């Protein structure tokens, strides 16, 4: 859908408490344009719970239920049931960070998926606990500095899409804020499908990733161009790639060097300074290469 056809209505209002250049802000605006007014959010502890701004004001033009860190998907099951009793077909959406999704809330998310709650779970993934001051999460990539991985994380992130797939959801997608039409389309599609849906939006974070705040969208697009992140959809268990990621998969374009992505972020600075850490840069590249190798075999 061309940008001019996207709704003019702003359901995430200007003047919020978000950091300047916040990727989550972009994700919220685009997703809410696809979701529309008849939507209820439930939000666990995460950046979004701060972005809402302070009582008695809120930056959200739709109902938002804040809930404890581990509990958003369970809360969504309750909201859905309550609405169903009243014959309401309002979209129920969890909007959660990667900490709530990959780590503390993964059990309640798995539960809501298994009981086939009709809701859309959106994880805006900034690859760390940004809200609490940049700690390592299950989504933090190998090598990244955080305040709990001072010398760089030693492990890779877990594969949340594979976890979602293991629940046989009718719709799973990844997106990133640098491709607004794609993100909008995927949210719209999810909205049209009953049952549990999962969308993960890579959402760069200037203070966490340590790049200039004007580069949030550039960093998002670079994540796709380097193949660090892939745009994909999973329907009925079939994985399809789209946009630039499809072209990379089919060998129509060569991905940019992963190093471009790493070197643009202060959180990977220790891989380049004071001395180039060949071994870890190579390992990072291998992780990405192996991922694309699997993708070419039709796997995640």
């Amino acid at each position: 859908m061309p940008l001019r056809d996207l709704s003019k209505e702003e359901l995430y209002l200007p003047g919020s408490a978000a950091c300047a250049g916040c990727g989550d802000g972009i994700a919220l605006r685009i997703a809410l344009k696809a979701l529309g007014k008849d939507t209820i959010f439930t939000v666990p502890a995460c950046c979004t719970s701060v972005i809402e701004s302070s009582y008695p004001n809120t930056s959200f033009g739709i109902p938002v239920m804040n809930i404890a860190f581990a509990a958003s998907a369970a809360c969504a099951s309750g909201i859905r049931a309550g609405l169903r009793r009243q014959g309401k077909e309002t979209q129920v959406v969890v909007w959660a960070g990667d900490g709530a999704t990959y780590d503390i809330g993964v059990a309640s998310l798995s539960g809501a998926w298994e009981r086939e709650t009709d809701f859309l779970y959106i994880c805006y993934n900034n690859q760390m606990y940004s809200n609490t001051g940049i700690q390592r999460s299950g989504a933090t990539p190998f090598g990244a500095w955080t305040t709990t991985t001072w010398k760089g994380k030693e492990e890779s992130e877990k594969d949340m899409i594979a976890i979602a797939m293991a629940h046989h959801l009718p719709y799973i997608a990844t997106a990133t804020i640098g491709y607004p039409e794609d993100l909008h389309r995927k949210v719209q599609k999810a909205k049209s499908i009953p049952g549990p849906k999962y969308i993960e939006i890579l959402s760069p974070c200037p203070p966490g990733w340590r790049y200039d705040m004007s580069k949030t969208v550039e960093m998002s697009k670079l994540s796709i161009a380097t193949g660090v992140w892939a745009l994909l959809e999973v329907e009925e268990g079939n994985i399809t790639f789209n946009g630039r990621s499809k072209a990379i998969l089919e060998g129509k374009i060569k991905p940019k060097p992963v190093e471009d992505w790493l070197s643009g972020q202060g959180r990977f600075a220790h891989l380049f300074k004071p001395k180039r850490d060949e071994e870890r840069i190579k390992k990072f590249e291998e992780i990405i290469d192996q991922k694309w190798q699997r993708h070419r075999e039709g796997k995640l």
Partner: protein
Amino acid sequence: MREIFTTISRPVKGATEKTGQWRTFKPLLDKKKCTRCLRCWILCPDGAIQRNEDESVEINLEYCKGCGICANECPVKAIRMVREE
């Protein structure tokens, strides 16, 4: 409902404040260069770029936090960032 009963908040523009005061650099739009592609509008993290009926855009400096994403993403470089005085 009693005034203070539980944490119930109502939607309002500028819920935190007029966030324009956060800015160090201000976006300046050259309307002649603008092709009305709307990328700045959709990519503004704060919804501080208004979209007019004719698809021209205007920057709402009351709320613009000065991140510079619009200037960075404008395909025709119609927006540039200048230091606030």
